[in-house]
C-alpha cells in the first residue's frame, strides 16, 4: 500500500492547488479576511498593530470569549442558543472569588495563597457552571421550553445571583496561584514556549501522517506526498511563527526589577526576559483541541451534529436527544466557568460587571466562524478565528482612535455582513441548509 500512484479509482479531472491540498476554503477565506484586517490596521496605526506587544495583548484578550465560543458552536449546531453565558460567567466568577478570599482561607482556615486554594476554587466553579448549564439544558430538553426563553431568563437570573452573592462588591485580590491564568500574570517564558512549540509541531506532523496511514489502510485515495509535505510545512511554520512573536515581547524592565526585588535579589545589568506563551492561551489551545476531538471523533460529537441536521432522524436512530441537550448545555456552563477563571484572573478580582455582553460576543464569534443558526454546521477552529477577528476589529479601531459608538456600529455591521457572505458561499458551493 506504499505506492500511492497505483490503482486510481477513476480518471480525475485536473485539480486546482486548493483541491489537491484539500484545504478548507471557508477557513481560508476567514484567514484571508483576518490577515487583510491586521495589515490594514497596521498601516493605519503606523505599524503599532502588528507589534509583539499588541499580538500578545490581542491573544490574551480573545481567550475568554474564544473558550465560550467553542461551546456555543455545539449549542447552535443543535439548533439552540445560550444567552446566559455572560451572566453564568459572573456567577462562576463570584463563586470562585468567594471560595479563595473567604470560604477557604477564613472559614476553613487555610490562610492566604494555600496551594490547594486555586484548584479547589476552580473545581467548584466548574461544578457550579456545569450544574447550572445542565439545569438549563433540562428545562430545554425535557420540559421543551425554548432555549431562547430559558437562557434569556438565565441572563437575568445568574447576573443577579452573582450580584446577590457579592452584594455587588468587587472581590479581590485573588489567590496568587489562581492569578497564573490571567494573561501577563502567568506566562511560560521563552524556553518553555519553544518546548511547547516543538511538541505542537510534532503532534501536528504526527496527526497528518496518521490520517494518511489510516486512509491507506482502508485503500482510500490520498493526497500526493508533496501536498502533505506542504501542509505540514505551513502548519509548522504557523505554530513556530506564533511562538516566536510571543517570545519577542520582552517583559518591561521596571516590572522585571520589581520581580527581582520581590525575591530579595537585584537585577543584573542588561538582563531581559520574554513573556512567552500565556497560560490562558495554553488553556484555550487545550480546550480547542479537546473540543475538536469531541466534535469529530466522539459519538457525543457525532450525535450533536446529527441532531442539528435532523432531530427526528437522530431520535429514530436511538439517540437520546433530550439527554444530549442537557450534556451540551452542561458543557457550555463548564466552559463559561473556565472563561470566568481566565477573565477574573486577568482582572485580578471579581467585579460585578464581569462578562457583561459576553453572550453577544460569543454568539457573534461562533456565527462569524461559520456556525449556521439553522443547525448542523459549525467548526471549533472557525469559532476561535471568529473571536479573534472580533477582538482585532475592536482593538484595532480603538488604536486608530475610532469613537466608541462608531466601534460598535462597525462590529454590528461586520457581523451581519459576515453571515451574508457565508450564505453566498454556501450557495456557491451547493451546500444546502
Amino acid at each position, binding site marked *: 500500500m506504499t505506492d500511492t500512484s497505483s490503482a486510481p479509482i*477513476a480518471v480525475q479531472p485536473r485539480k486546482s492547488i486548493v483541491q489537491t491540498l484539500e484545504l478548507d476554503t471557508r477557513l481560508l477565506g476567514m484567514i484571508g479576511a483576518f490577515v487583510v484586517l491586521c495589515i490594514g490596521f497596521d498601516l493605519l496605526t503606523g505599524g503599532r498593530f502588528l507589534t509583539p506587544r499588541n499580538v500578545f495583548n490581542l491573544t490574551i484578550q480573545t481567550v475568554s470569549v474564544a473558550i465560550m465560543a467553542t461551546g456555543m458552536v455545539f449549542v447552535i449546531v443543535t439548533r439552540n442558543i445560550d444567552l446566559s453565558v455572560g451572566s453564568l460567567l459572573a456567577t462562576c466568577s463570584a463563586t470562585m472569588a468567594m471560595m479563595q478570599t473567604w470560604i477557604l482561607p477564613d472559614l476553613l482556615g487555610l490562610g492566604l495563597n494555600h496551594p490547594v486554594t486555586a484548584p479547589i476554587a476552580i473545581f467548584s466553579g466548574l461544578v457550579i457552571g456545569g450544574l447550572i448549564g445542565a439545569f438549563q439544558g433540562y428545562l430545554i430538553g425535557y420540559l421543551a421550553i425554548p432555549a431562547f426563553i430559558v437562557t434569556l431568563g438565565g441572563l437575568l437570573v445568574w447576573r443577579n445571583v452573582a450580584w446577590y452573592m457579592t452584594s455587588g462588591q468587587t472581590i479581590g485580590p485573588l489567590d496568587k496561584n489562581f492569578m497564573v491564568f490571567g494573561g501577563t500574570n502567568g506566562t511560560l517564558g521563552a524556553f518553555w514556549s519553544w518546548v511547547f512549540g516543538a511538541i505542537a509541531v510534532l503532534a501536528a506532523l504526527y496527526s497528518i501522517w496518521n490520517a494518511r496511514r*489510516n*486512509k491507506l*489502510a*482502508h*485503500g*482510500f485515495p490520498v493526497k500526493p506526498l508533496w501536498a502533505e509535505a506542504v501542509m505540514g510545512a505551513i502548519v509548522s511554520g504557523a505554530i513556530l511563527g506564533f511562538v516566536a512573536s510571543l517570545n519577542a515581547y520582552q517583559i518591561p524592565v521596571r516590572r522585571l526589577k520589581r520581580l527581582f526585588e520581590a525575591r530579595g535579589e537585584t537585577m543584573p545589568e542588561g538582563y531581559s526576559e520574554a513573556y512567552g506563551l500565556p497560560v490562558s492561551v495554553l488553556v484555550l489551545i487545550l480546550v480547542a483541541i479537546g473540543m475538536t*476531538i469531541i466534535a469529530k*471523533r*466522539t*459519538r457525543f460529537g*457525532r*450525535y450533536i*451534529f*446529527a*441532531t*442539528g*441536521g*435532523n432531530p*427526528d*432522524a*437522530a*431520535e*429514530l*436512530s*436511538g*439517540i*437520546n436527544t433530550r439527554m444530549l441537550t442537557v450534556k451540551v448545555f452542561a458543557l457550555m456552563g463548564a466552559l463559561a466557568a473556565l472563561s470566568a477563571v481566565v477573565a477574573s484572573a486577568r482582572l485580578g478580582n471579581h467585579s460585578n460587571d464581569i462578562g457583561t455582553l459576553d453572550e453577544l460576543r460569543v454568539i457573534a464569534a461562533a456565527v462569524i466562524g461559520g456556525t449556521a443558526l439553522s443547525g*448542523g*454546521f459549525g467548526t471549533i477552529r472557525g469559532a476561535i478565528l471568529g473571536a479573534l477577528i472580533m477582538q482585532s476589529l475592536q482593538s484595532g479601531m480603538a488604536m486608530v482612535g475610532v469613537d466608541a459608538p462608531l466601534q460598535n456600529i462597525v462590529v454590528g455591521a461586520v457581523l451581519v455582513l459576515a453571515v451574508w457572505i457565508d450564505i453566498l458561499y454556501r450557495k456557491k458551493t*451547493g*451546500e*444546502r441548509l
Partner: protein
Amino acid sequence: MTAQAQQVPLVEMRDISVAFGGVRAVDGVTVDLFPGEVVGLLGHNGAGKTTLIKVLSGAYQADEGEIFINGEKVNISNPRDARAYNIETIYQTLALADNLDAASNLFLGREIVTSVGLVDDGAMEAEARKIMARLNPNFEKFSAPVSALSGGQRQSVAIARAVYFNARILIMDEPTAALGPHETQMVSELIQQLKSEGIGIFLISHDIHEVMDLCDRASVMKNGKLVGTVDVAEVTDDDLLGMIILGKHPQDKAKS
C-alpha cells in the same frame, strides 16, 4: 403456509390503536408476521400504515394494544428498544441527517469505535462501501453529505442502514418509491434473499404488482381500520384493489 397454524409468529401486533388528538390514525388493528415471510401493508394515503409500523419501530407509543415478539409480550417505548429486538426500519421519510455523509448515517447510533473509544470513520466508510456495492453499485459519493445525493441514492443509504445490522424483523415503508428500475430490481432480489435467511418483513407499498410478486400475505387498511389480511396466492389484483378502495373483503363477495 400451512405450517403457520402451529408456529409462533415472529411479531404479533394485537388490537393496536393510536390517536393524534381526536384523529384515530390506527384503530384496533391486528397484524402478524412469521419468520421468512413478507407481509404487505396496503391502503390509501392516510390509511394509517406508517403510524402502525412506527409503533413497532418505537417511534410512537400505542394508546391501546399489545406487541408480542416470538410469543412474548414486549414493551417498545423508544427506537433503542426496537433495535434491541433486532427490528430495523426503513422510514418513508428516510430519517437521514442531511449534514452527515453516507457512512455516518449508516452507523448513526451504532458507530464503530477504535480501541480508545473514538469513532473510526475509516472503518465505517470501508463497511459502507461494501454494503453499498451490493445495493447500488453506481454509488460513489461517500464523502459528500447526504443532502448532496439524489432521492434514490438517499433511499439506498436508508436501505443499507436497515439491512446492515442483521435485522430479524425488517420494516420497509415504501422503500422503492424513489428508485430507478434497476435499483428496484436489486431491492426485490434483496427482499427474496433476506426472506430466505428467515427474516420477517413488513413491506408497505402502493404498487399492487410489487406486493403480488414479493409478499406472502397482504394486510389492507382503510381509515385506520384493518379491512382484512389475505394470502396473496388466493386473490387477484382486483380483489386487493377492492379492499383498498371500497374496504370490501373478498370473502364478502363470495358470500353475497
